[in-house]
């Protein structure tokens, strides 16, 4: 089993790669379409801006092939990797894959909070999922983001988190799972989550 990590030019993909290799996984950095064939699972890392990620994927001709693979292989999107599944974001007029129509918005400016939302916050698990196996409800994961998913279909929302307002911190839909938090920076809890992803068979 081999996990592909999408390289869109401006992410912390090596942190994810190091975490997975620490757990004994085989990994491959995907920086061109042909490499997609070689992997069984996919991770879309998070960091950087949606606009530059999308234009980089188009430049290396990965955008359309990835769209097809997203529907087939077990997929984990992290942070920006969650946002790409949606159609639009306040972060420029950038179009993601558009599987879901809800808007990715900024934290409202009038809240008494610091933005970016940076640090360890509680993940309230709303529904069981294979990726949360042996992870307690209310476990803190590491977050760093300024944009959020406020509303989503209830049956596909797996956890929420609160920073000034409540937002959706993970979503799942058949072979797709995506988190606003960063498992690769979440210490033991994050490693457990990745281990669940390696074992996941949706």
């Amino acid at each position: 089993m081999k996990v592909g990590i999408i390289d869109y030019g401006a992410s912390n993909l090596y942190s994810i790669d190091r975490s997975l290799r620490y757990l004994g996984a085989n990994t491959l950095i995907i920086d061109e379409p042909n490499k997609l064939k070689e992997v069984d699972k996919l991770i879309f890392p998070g960091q950087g801006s949606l606009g530059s990620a999308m234009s980089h994927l188009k430049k290396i001709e990965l955008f359309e092939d990835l769209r097809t693979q997203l529907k087939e292989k077990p997929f984990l999107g992290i942070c920006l990797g969650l946002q790409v599944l949606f159609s639009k974001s306040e972060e420029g007029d950038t179009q993601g894959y558009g599987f879901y129509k809800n808007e990715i918005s900024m934290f409202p400016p009038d809240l008494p909070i610091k933005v970016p939302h940076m640090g360890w916050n509680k993940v309230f698990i709303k529904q069981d999922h294979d990726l949360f196996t042996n992870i307690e409800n209310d476990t803190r994961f590491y977050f760093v983001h300024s944009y959020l998913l406020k509303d989503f279909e209830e049956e596909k929302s797996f956890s929420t988190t609160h920073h000034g307002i409540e937002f959706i911190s993970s979503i799942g839909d058949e072979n797709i799972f995506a988190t606003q938090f960063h498992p690769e920076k979440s210490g033991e809890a994050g490693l457990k989550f990745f281990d669940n992803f390696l074992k996941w068979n949706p």
Partner: protein
Amino acid sequence: MTVAVRIIPCLDIRAGRVVKGVNFENIIDAGDPVETAERYNTEGADELCFLDIDASYENRSATLSTVEAVASQVFIPLTVGGGVSKLQDIERLLEKGADKVSINTSAILDPSLVGNAAKKFGSQCIVVAVDSKREGEKSYVYTHGGKNKTAFETSAWIKIVEGEGAGEILLTSMDRDGTKIGFDNELTSSIAKDLSIPLITSGGAGSIDHMIEGITDGKADAVLAASIFHQKEITIAEVKDGLASKGIEVRL
């Protein structure tokens, strides 16, 4: 019900070793970076901060290997600073496993570096480190590891880099650094009240009460300390218990 206050041990690095000084002088060896990082991770550190305090060309490659070695064993956020002067430096550190890069002297020399770095890598990974020293009623920013005074007052400078797109401020009181008499909470709170991005307070922590005061009085989002953790005077777990007993949210 919100994000936890962060406890960040800082490892000053010189030529691949952890070192520590008092008031930015009298540097002594304080251990191996990977071993130290692993110990802090086990104790419950929320992040780790590495500052290459003598970032010459030779030491820079030692620091890159240190970052890579730590990042392969410890899976919590790593901030690395010291001698970061161009976008390429940031890129290289991120490749080796840094999650955030702190910029100090070079931001003063060219504030647009902060803006350009935030645009390229995202605000979340750009920390501006500010070394501040009091002079009567005022506080001024120093550069080059505390050697050179600038014309910038600390509060004015922080507003500038916030506007440029910094994701976080690491504010060190040079007057308190290594003294263990407590953070300069007056300075920190005066900055924090006008700041929309997270503020890390640094310089002077000597007890659990100091850590608590850094949050309650200093209004910081995170506390950073070196000496007391290196010398095992108190552990990170003890600090977190102390904060939790005051109703402050921490990751236990």
